[in-house]
Structures are given as structure tokens and as C-alpha cells.
């Protein structure tokens, strides 16, 4: 395709000079958007998977001198109650050290934190196939263990998922916009090229060339320019994404979830130059056909 004969002198066109750079920019932005969509999709799936089938029981600490023993007793009671409830697979109380470890990314590890009246937590695993009436379980728990509440994560998870989904749609809209801008640029470049080579096109037309014979030559050139521009964009995007991945890994430690791009994501991004080239090629072909259809 890249080495097919061309009767049109398209290689020296001024439009050839700017199109690859524009496609490069578009592929670069697309790569960032695609990476964003894939990372967010992976994140939502992981959150959903990690959190579905789990509950957290919170026990408010009892103040006073005997408070610690009383709180410990309530934790034990609550865990026992949860374990006896049909549909609950396990209930694992977290000791204070484990609770502090969970809070360390936000509050740090200073001594003063250890003296805070932190609620005690029980990590509960739920059989996802069981029809558990959470409202009834929460009522019973509240009656039998004062200061105990259930958090099934659904509220904050659904908000996070909504945010992620919105961001995904925005990223997809950006990619569509990038595709539209790329196509519009190719249309402009092709029409300019047709105008510059009007005489040659007329001769080819009059000696019996089908429209597609002429369109193919513009399409081949657009493919070549789109592909080379796409490769430049990819060459710029890979270090950028690698740098973002490296930076997020440095601040992970529980504070940020893992933002690593999966292998399939790298494959999709690696295909972007080919997609840009194909988009350029078909746009050029359609543009030439549309313009030639006005000739006698």
C-alpha cells in the first residue's frame, strides 16, 4: 500500500508537511485518553470485585477507664452475632494495630494518633448468592450491641463508580472529537491536494480512469502520512504514560489505587497509529469520491 505506483505528484505537497504532525498530536492525546479510560475501567472493576461480598461493622469506642474492655466485649459480641447470621461466611475483628495501619496513609504514624478514640472494625465476608436482609441485620445488631453500625460500602462505591463512569464517557467523547478533528483535517488536506493537482486529475479522468483509481492514490498517501504521524504520536505517548505510571506508583502505599495500564491497554495504544492511518485513508478516499462525483 505504501509503495504502490502513483500518477499524482503528492509527495511534494505542502499539506504533506503538516498532516503527520497533526495526526501525531491526535494520536498522543488519544493514547492519553485511552489509557485514562482503561485505567478507570480496571479500577472500577477492581473496586466492585473487592468490595462486593464484604461488609464492615463499626463499633464506637466506650469512653472511660473500663471502656477498652467493654469495647472489646462488644466487638466480640458483634462478631459472634454476625457469624451466626445465615449468609455470613466470616467475621474478622481488626485489632487497633490493623486499624491504625489502615489509617496511616491519611493520618500518618505519629504517637498521638494511637490515642485517638478510633472505632473498632469487623471485616465481614458475605455469601454473594445469599439473600441477606441488611436492614434487619443492622437493626438486630444495633439492638444487641450498643454503638454498632453496618457499612456495606454501597453508597460511597456507587458514587465513585458514577464518577469513574462519567470520566470514562468524557474520555470517549474526547477520543471521538479527536477522530472528528483528524478526519476534518484530512478532508481539508485532500481537497487542497485535489485543487493543486486539478490538471492531472482531469487528464486521468478523461483517459478513462475510474474515480477509485484516483481516490486510491490520495488514500494511499493519506495512509502513509497518517501512519508516520501516528508513530510519532505513539513515540511521544509511551514515555508520557510510563512516567505517569512511575509517578503514581511512588505515591501508592494505599493512598492511591494502582493506576498501572494493563497489557491489553498497551496493545490498544500500540494500534492507534494503524487506526489513525486507516481513518485518514478512508476519509481521503471518501473525500475524493465526493469531489469527483461533480465531474461530468
Amino acid at each position, binding site marked *: 500500500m505504501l509503495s504502490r*505506483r502513483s*500518477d499524482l*505528484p503528492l509527495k511534494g505537497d505542502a499539506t504533506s508537511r503538516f498532516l503527520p504532525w497533526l495526526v501525531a498530536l491526535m494520536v498522543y492525546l488519544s493514547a492519553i485518553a485511552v489509557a485514562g479510560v482503561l485505567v478507570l475501567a480496571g479500577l472500577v472493576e477492581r473496586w466492585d470485585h473487592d468490595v462486593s461480598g464484604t461488609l464492615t461493622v463499626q463499633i464506637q469506642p466506650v469512653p472511660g477507664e473500663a471502656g477498652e474492655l467493654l469495647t472489646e466485649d462488644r466487638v466480640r459480641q458483634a462478631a459472634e452475632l454476625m457469624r451466626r447470621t445465615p449468609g455470613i461466611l466470616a467475621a474478622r475483628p481488626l485489632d487497633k494495630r490493623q486499624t491504625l495501619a489502615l489509617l496511616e496513609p491519611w493520618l500518618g504514624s505519629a504517637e498521638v494518633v494511637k490515642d485517638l478514640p478510633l472505632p473498632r472494625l469487623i471485616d465481614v465476608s458475605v455469601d454473594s448468592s445469599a439473600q441477606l436482609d441488611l436492614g434487619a441485620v443492622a437493626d438486630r445488631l444495633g439492638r444487641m450491641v450498643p454503638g454498632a453500625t453496618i457499612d456495606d460500602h454501597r453508597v460511597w462505591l456507587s458514587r465513585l463508580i458514577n464518577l469513574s463512569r462519567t470520566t470514562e464517557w468524557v474520555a470517549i467523547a474526547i477520543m471521538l472529537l479527536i477522530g472528528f478533528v483528524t478526519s476534518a483535517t484530512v478532508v481539508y488536506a485532500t481537497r487542497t491536494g485535489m485543487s493543486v493537482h486539478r*490538471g*492531472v486529475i*482531469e*487528464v*486521468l*479522468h*478523461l*483517459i*478513462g*480512469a*475510474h*474515480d477509485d*483509481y484516483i481516490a486510491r492514490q490520495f488514500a494511499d498517501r493519506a495512509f502513509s502520512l497518517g501512519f508516520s504521524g501516528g508513530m510519532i504520536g505513539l513515540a511521544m505517548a509511551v514515555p508520557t504514560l510510563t512516567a505517569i505510571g512511575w509517578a503514581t506508583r511512588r505515591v501508592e502505599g494505599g493512598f492511591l489505587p494502582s493506576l498501572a495500564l494493563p497489557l491489553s491497554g498497551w496493545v490498544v495504544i500500540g494500534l492507534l497509529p494503524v487506526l489513525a492511518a486507516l481513518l485518514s485513508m478512508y476519509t481521503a478516499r471518501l473525500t475524493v469520491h465526493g469531489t469527483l*462525483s461533480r465531474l*461530468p
Partner: protein
Amino acid sequence: MRHRPRGEHIIRFDSVGLRYGLGPEVLQDVTFALPSGSFHFLTGASGAGKSSLLRLMYLGLRPSRGRVTLFDKDIAMTRRYELPALRRRIGVVFQDFQLLDHLSTLDNVALPLRVRGVKESEVQKHVPELLGWVGLADHLHAKPPTLSGGQKQRVAIARAVIGRPDLLLADEPTGNVDDHIAMRLLHLFEELNKLGTTVVIATHNQSLVDRFSQYSRLHIERGTVVEPE
């Protein structure tokens, strides 16, 4: 080449009129028919409408009114995608040659074969042979800007005849060449005509027309075809 029995009309104009945009008609009520295998000179004063008539004949324009029938097809009723097949049966020598400056002589002449999808081995065999015949064997790889007017004209003629067309239309094909070359080119057209090609040559050159007086004339005057005086 799909030659037809001599005598059948290869092209017919019925009351054809042509105007450019909203301007006056440059051709009015043009009516004639050319038998297959015939040879004609198209004569007329400068500006009489010879080039416009040729453009209608090689499907470079559509008539404003009337009917053009080419190879038994009413052009007004012919679908656009069928027109390239008709154009491939027509060889045209344009007055301004219309050679592609970025292509070599060989590639210019090869164009009609390549648009038809002829094998490259056939192209490389036939094109140098024809260029040798028109005296350009030493200029196969020369680009048109380096050729003289006469050489360009011969390249244009070679491009028009390489596909052995059923209809050959030539606009002043001998305008830039000396008498010797002009006679040689005319004999080339005669040879093609003997093989069945219908030939129409638009010319100002009265002496040429007189020298080949055995051929009929299509005379155009003030935009319409009339009997020659």
C-alpha cells in the same frame, strides 16, 4: 479494441447545444453522425467552436441540450460509472498536450494502459515500441519540460493511440511540428484508421486538408456544423 462494422455510426449529435454557465450558446443545433472507421477533418475559424465540439465528443462536457450518442449509448442516459469504459475507447490529443510534467515520457504514454490495469510487462513492451515509432526512442525517460513543442506533441499523440482507440480525436495535432513530422503523424493516423479507428482531426492547416482531400470535412461556423464551401 472493439471495432464495429464500417458504416455504423460511432458518434451521433442530434440538435446539440452547449453553453458555459449562463453565457450564450457556443454550439447551436449541432447535428451530424460519423460512420465507424471514417476519417474526418474538423475545420473552422478560430473561436468557431471546434474545441468545444471535441470536448463534447470526448465526454469532457455534457451538452446543455440535444442528444449525444456515442458507441450506441445515449450519454444523457448513461450512468456515471459507465463513462470511464466509454472514455477508454477514445484517444484524445489535446491542443495544449496536457502531459504530466512530473512523469517521464514513457510513464505519460503508459497512462491509458495503466488506468485499464494492463500488466506492467505489456506496458514496458508496447510503450517504447510506439515511442520509437514517433521518433522518441531516445527520450523514454525525459520529462515533458525538457522536450520541445514538437516532441511534446508526439508524446501526446502516442498517449492517445497507445490503447488503439475506436475513436481518435486530435486538436491541432500538427500545429507544432515540421512538415516531415506532420506527414509522418498523419500517416500514423491513417494506419490507425485502416485498422478501424474513426479519426477526427481539428485543424487550421488548409494545406494539410487539401493534401488529404480524400477525407471528408466537418466544418463548423458560428457554433454550428455546416456544409464546407
